[in-house]
């Protein structure tokens, strides 16, 4: 999933730096796990079975999880930009307390590829929307092994993952990719609109869908387009900030 732009470790230096890196490794592996969890959650939010209305409870729980990670990454300073009110607010013990991230499960999974069940789950609905995206099925344990860099990479990695997800989509709106990076004012990737997008359905329905969508959305006419156009619509919701 994260095959683009990865830095390879210089093999020779490992022994020298092992001691120094040991402390850094545990911290970064936690960041990697957190990153992977974030990506998995984003994928889950996007890949809803669109023939039947998505389960609102599930979407809310996943979105809350993403928000939680988002908050923590902000306090870490690993988020893309930090607004003044966030800086220096979080007590350190909060970071420590959230360190439990099923290490044993990850280590177990690191030894083998992502479970078939997870893959099947991902690929099924995806194939409805866009066959190419199946390549993005989470292989987080293995990708995690490669990415042992500074937190800066994580932040970039987040946008890379978004990028990864979107780049292969045939977008009818070429400006959509620029939108991803053009916005500098708003601090967060706005997950609220993701949730809203899920709540309202990718096809705008009556009030619920419309009130959740920001004005810049194309409007009900997009629901008349093909599935790909619908995905494009979802993309626009996601990048809306």
């Amino acid at each position, binding site marked *: 999933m994260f095959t683009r732009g990865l830095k390879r470790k210089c093999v020779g230096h490992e022994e020298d730096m092992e001691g120094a890196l040991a402390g850094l490794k545990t911290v970064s592996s936690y960041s990697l796990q957190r990153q992977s969890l974030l990506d998995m959650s984003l994928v889950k939010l996007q890949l809803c079975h669109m023939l039947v*209305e998505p389960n609102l*409870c*599930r979407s809310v*729980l996943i979105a809350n999880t993403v928000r939680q990670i988002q908050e923590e990454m902000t306090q870490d300073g690993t988020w893309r930009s930090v607004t003044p009110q966030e800086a220096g607010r979080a007590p350190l013990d909060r970071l420590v307390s959230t360190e*439990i*991230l099923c290490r044993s499960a990850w280590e177990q999974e690191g030894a083998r590829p*992502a479970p078939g069940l997870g893959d099947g789950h991902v690929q099924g609905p995806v194939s409805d929307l866009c066959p190419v995206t199946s390549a993005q099925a*989470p292989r987080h344990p293995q990708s995690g092994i490669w990415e042992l860099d500074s937190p800066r990479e994580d932040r970039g990695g987040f946008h890379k993952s978004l990028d990864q997800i979107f780049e292969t989509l045939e977008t009818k709106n070429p400006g959509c990719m620029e939108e991803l990076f053009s916005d500098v004012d708003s601090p967060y990737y706005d997950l609220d609109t993701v949730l809203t997008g899920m709540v309202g*359905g990718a096809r705008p329905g009556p009030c*619920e869908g419309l009130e959740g969508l920001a004005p810049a959305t194309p409007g009900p006419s997009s629901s008349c387009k093909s599935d790909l156009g619908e995905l494009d619509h979802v993309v626009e919701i996601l990048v809306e900030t």
Partner: protein
Amino acid sequence: MIPGIGTLTQDTLWCFSQVKGTIEIGTTEDVPCFPFAFCHDCKFPEACPDMQNSNVLPSGLLPSGQNKLGPWCSPTGSPAPLSCETGCGEGSWILVCRLLVPTQVSLLSMEEDIDTRKINNSFLRDHSYATEADIISTVEFNHTGELLATGDKGGRVVIFQREQESKNQIHRRGEYNVYSTFQSHEPEFDYLKSLEIEEKINKIRWLPQQNAAYFLLSTNDKTVKLWKVSERDKRPEGYNLKDEEGRLRDPATITTLRVPVLRPMDLMVEATPRRVFANAHTYHINSISVNSDYETYMSADDLRINLWNFEITNQSFNIVDIKPANMEELTEVITAAEFHPHHCNTFVYSSSKGTIRLCDMRASALCDRHTKFFEEPEDPSNRSFFSEIISSISDVKFSHSGRYIMTRDYLTVKVWDLNMENRPIETYQVHDYLRSKLCSLYENDCIFDKFECVWNGSDSVIMTGSYNNFFRMFDRNTKRDVTLEASRENSKPRAILKPRKVCVGGKRRKDEISVDSLDFSKKILHTAWHPSENIIAVAATNNLYIFQDKVN
């Protein structure tokens, strides 16, 4: 003997009673396995429909040496009830008729609405036995325990009735036979949103019986229906204006008048929809609950709870609304709701954040402000990114006494005293060995499974389901618990269920099963306990198991 906890000197022994449902592909047992029994010499081969149809089972499933198949015969070869014209012998089990009964062999079945659609696209098709429409989605005993209703993903409701205990069969406690089957909900399409509305029955609730007929509420995601199930064993004959076939008679040919009389007929059980309560929920209905005044009931979806009067279908009162003005701020949904068993003004609802709110409808018309708020403070040592998800309450149930409520979240069952809001009085670990697997369970979505929980009749034992077709019972008085399994391997008549154990780490003992071997696709989400006796119904995907305690 107190139900649920046995005598003072021994525990309750649970034994298998019945199983109803489809067989899974790949079962390769050599012994006759329920529900199929392999006849050695079937006494009624000409009547057995599957003798003619050799496509029913692939030959691989037949034990070696057997090439005859008689699903209506009990393991010993004698005909079971609901077999053909002459069948009236004893069988210790019965298949679910709707799946297997062709229309011509249904004399003893009391259903009227045989679902031919189901017959056409289910069992009898090549090799596809367990269809997704058969997955049981709700189980509920009625208030006397005489009837047991199940709803499935295909929108069907099947009602079982306990047979009268006969004096010469003391050891066989009343077993449950199919009483009625009907299609409650059909799949619909919401044209405005271009989305399907599933026909899956989310909940069934019985009304207390007030006359000869039975009434129940059944609901899918959007619509609640009130069904009347009644028996008819007499029909009028001797009309003047129509003949026996119902054709109108020419009045000119009528020379005498007669009074129509009621003559006995074969018992017929018919289900009719008496009320349809539709178009009141934007989000998916997750709970319905009949009020103790028997005049009103409530239906709860993810964000709202509505109060209905049984007589009025075009209006409902909204009594809870947690939808934020800006949907972007949504962080919490309603997961379950129930009325107090005795106080018709009190109800509770649970949320995805692990909180329970008790509301009094006398306080205001809109019960957005709770009267009591139950929440347990979070344990900081157990905190993780999954804490909120596993704290989401999937079911809430009042005790029969009305003094306690029980809640089920992903890993535990908790009992709360209504008078203490800051923490539960009892917490039971259902499958704590999953705590270290939360990441994987999040990935395969199992962490979102909604398990239900039930009280026994005396509120002394609570039961809930788990994975691998395990279900757990906790005795509140002795603090002992047991894990049992609903599987066909243990399905011999009156076979005592052996307690199961999951081994967490280290050396696995002989009968234990390790956590990694658990089958997460076999989950028991729905169970029911008879209101006064030790009879439980356990839904395992598409099979319904009935267990009773051992009768000496």
